[in-house]
């Protein structure tokens, strides 16, 4: 039985945030990507994060639909699912940064900071992906060989990838949806987005440290969702 309301306690303390030069060199070689692609993640550093709770799963379509019904808030952008069965259990997409914050407020929660999100995804050992340091194509919902496109949304129910669970037991921190976090740039015109989602085809863009999909806060995307924290 999946409890979509469940939250996971992340104990206070330091964790390793970001990416170091050795990792960058290795990814750059492996994936033929210039090292400057990763510079926003540097330096790899110890960051203290106080005790907090984070949603075990991303906010689902069903949860967001209830928010829309009860508040009259703008619905997410209409999107057709690749596999519509169990649609309410898919993560919501097509929401702007402000929509995500409005939902969190309605739920009595808030968006996690980028640091909180990354800690919940990687734990304290600086691992590359939520499950470890070795790429595992079966541990997440992604887009190998760019087989999918944005005509249909390729999310999966949020309980679909047990191999991808983080050290704290948080699900879907790599793949399915990239996620809005609380941090903002350029006077909050750009919202911080962590990791990648079902439309992402490159393993290096699916790491929790990746923030390259941070985007214009006013725009909704078919592969960006969110979860909440308290």
């Amino acid at each position, binding site marked *: 039985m999946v409890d979509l309301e469940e939250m996971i306690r992340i104990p206070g303390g330091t964790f390793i945030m970001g990416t170091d030069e050795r990792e960058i060199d290795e990814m750059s070689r492996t994936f033929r990507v*210039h090292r*400057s692609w990763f510079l*926003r993640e540097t330096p790899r550093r110890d960051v203290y994060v106080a005790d907090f709770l984070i949603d075990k799963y991303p906010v689902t379509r069903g949860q967001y639909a209830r928010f829309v019904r009860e508040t009259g808030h703008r619905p997410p952008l209409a999107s057709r699912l690749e596999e519509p069965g169990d649609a309410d259990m898919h993560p919501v997409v097509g929401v702007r940064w402000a929509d995500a914050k409005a939902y969190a407020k309605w739920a009595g929660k808030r968006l996690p900071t980028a640091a909180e999100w990354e800690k919940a995804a990687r734990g304290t050992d600086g691992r590359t992906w939520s499950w470890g340091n070795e790429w595992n194509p079966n541990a997440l919902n992604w887009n190998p060989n760019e087989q999918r496109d*944005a005509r249909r949304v390729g999310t999966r129910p949020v309980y679909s990838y047990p191999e991808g669970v983080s050290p704290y037991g948080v699900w879907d921190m790599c793949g399915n949806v990239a996620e809005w976090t609380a941090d903002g740039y350029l006077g909050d015109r750009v919202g911080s987005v962590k990791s990648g989602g079902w*439309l992402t*085809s490159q393993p290096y*863009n699916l790491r929790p440290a990746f923030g*390259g999909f*941070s*985007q214009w806060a006013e725009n909704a995307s078919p592969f960006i969702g969110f979860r909440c924290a308290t």
Partner: protein
Amino acid sequence: MGAISIEPVQHSMVVRIKSADFPDDSFAVTIPESIGDGSKSIWVQPMVSRIEWRTNPDGSLQYELDVPDEARYAVHVTANDDTVDIEITLTNNSNRVWETSHAFTCFNGAAAYSFADHELIRTYGGHTGKLIRLIEHPRKPSERPPIQLYGVEGAPSANQTPFVAGFKATSPIVLEGFLAIVSKNRQGVMAVASRNPLYLFNNLEYSCIHACPNFGRPVPGNSAPAFTRLYVMRGDLESFYKRFRTDFAA
């Protein structure tokens, strides 16, 4: 009748582009998002209610916009077999010399699903006579990660234009005057090139590419033309590159 059809969106700067060669893809070009003095560029969006596209007997499209005491420009768009030509004439109606001038015209592939590249893995430029995949070359990280600007070989340094410098996202590499995205099946290319471009721009969020033309240094009262060509073509990247070199030979 060519493979390409164009349709204006009234009261906007947008022209929708369809190609019979890529029937599942919808392209769009915004002409221009911004234009004029490179240190005091006009953002056109607040004035779109004044844009009235006209369709000419030959199928080409045009509109004009006057920004009092600043600039006037005229846009003309023509569809060909596998290209779309954009001619803009810009007049300096201000009382100052524009040290740089430009048009920020956006070729958008977000709904061209065979082409859309949100990870920069199929986006190419030309550098010292060779095609390069942009993700393998230096990028300037910024607070808006999906965007990047590039200077153009033979043009003034891109960051000399305040419009460009303001983005704080100009790559150290300098490219030839085009950007191209190869389709996922490698059998098609969407590209943009301008004659005498001032800089190039790419935004992964929209999978858009720009080759922004340079109108030079118009003094008050003077006009200057610019030419941009969009390609939606069958073939591989090399065949596009040959076309570009022929079309834009000095």
